[in-house]
Structure formats: C-alpha cells, structure tokens
C-alpha cells in the first residue's frame, strides 16, 4: 500500500508539474502575442495603415471586376475615328481646292473671252 501511495504521489507530482508548465507556456504565448500585436499596431499607425492590397477576385464585387472594360482600347478606337475624320477633311479640302481652281480657270477664260 505504501509503494502504491508513493507511486501515486510521483504520478501526481509529474502531472501537476506538467500542468503548471503548460499554464506558464500558455500565459507566455498569449503575452507574447499581445506584445507582438501591439508592435504591429504601432507599425500600422506609423505607416498610416498603408498596405498591399489583397486579391479581390473572390469578393462581393467579383462580377463588377470580371466585366471591367478595356479603357485603353476604348480610347484607341477613338483614334480610328480621328484618323478617318482627317482623311475625310483632307479629301474635302482637295475636292474644294479642285473646284476653286476650276472656278478660277473658268472666270479667267470668260474674262479673256469677254
């Protein structure tokens, strides 16, 4: 019976020692985490919260992002419009110059004839 009691006591000693150490480790872990987070918060305040953006493809706005138009292409397409207008106005200018030349020639001919 004495040996049994001694064995039990030894077991209790081991168990309580382990538990006590576990408590200390748990407290230490929480304290370190709190200190780390406080430092992170200070860093964050210093940088005014500036941070790299996270991927937003799985958010509530995913559909909006998936239908984002190509703005550069929209402007590039307008370039065609302007090129076309340039051509048209050039042709118009040439045609009018031609008609003006014809008009001037006709006037000179009629003056000469007159």
């Amino acid at each position, binding site marked *: 019976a004495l040996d049994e009691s001694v064995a039990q006591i030894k077991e*209790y*000693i081991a168990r*309580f*020692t382990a*538990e*006590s150490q576990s*408590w*200390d480790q*748990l*407290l230490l872990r*929480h*304290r370190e*985490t*709190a200190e780390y*987070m*406080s430092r*992170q*918060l200070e860093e*964050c*305040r210093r940088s*005014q*919260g*500036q*941070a*790299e*953006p*996270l991927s937003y493809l799985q958010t509530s706005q995913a559909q909006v992002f998936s239908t984002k138009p190509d*703005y*550069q292409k929209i*402007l590039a397409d307008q370039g065609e419009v302007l090129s076309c207008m340039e051509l048209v106005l050039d042709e118009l200018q040439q045609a009018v110059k031609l008609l003006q030349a014809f008009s001037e020639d006709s006037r000179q001919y009629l003056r000469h004839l007159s």
Partner: protein
Amino acid sequence: ELIVETATKRKQWPKKILMHAIQTMKAEQEMLKLYQPFVTPEEIRS
C-alpha cells in the same frame, strides 16, 4: 507546494490570459480599421 502553485495558476492565469487576449483582439480590430490598401490606377495613354 506544487498543488497550491498549480491550483493558483488554474485560478489566476485565465484572468491574465483574458487580459492579453483582449489586448490582442483590440489591436487586431484597430489594425483592420486602419487598413488602407493602395491600388494604383492603370495608366491611360492619351
């Protein structure tokens, strides 16, 4: 001594842990509020 030490930790350590846990959570919340991701607009060439 070991029994008393362990029993005292069972009683008091949770309060201290709670304090640190609250501090951690408050810091996390504060950081979330301060979170300012910066997305650069694409350059649109004229």
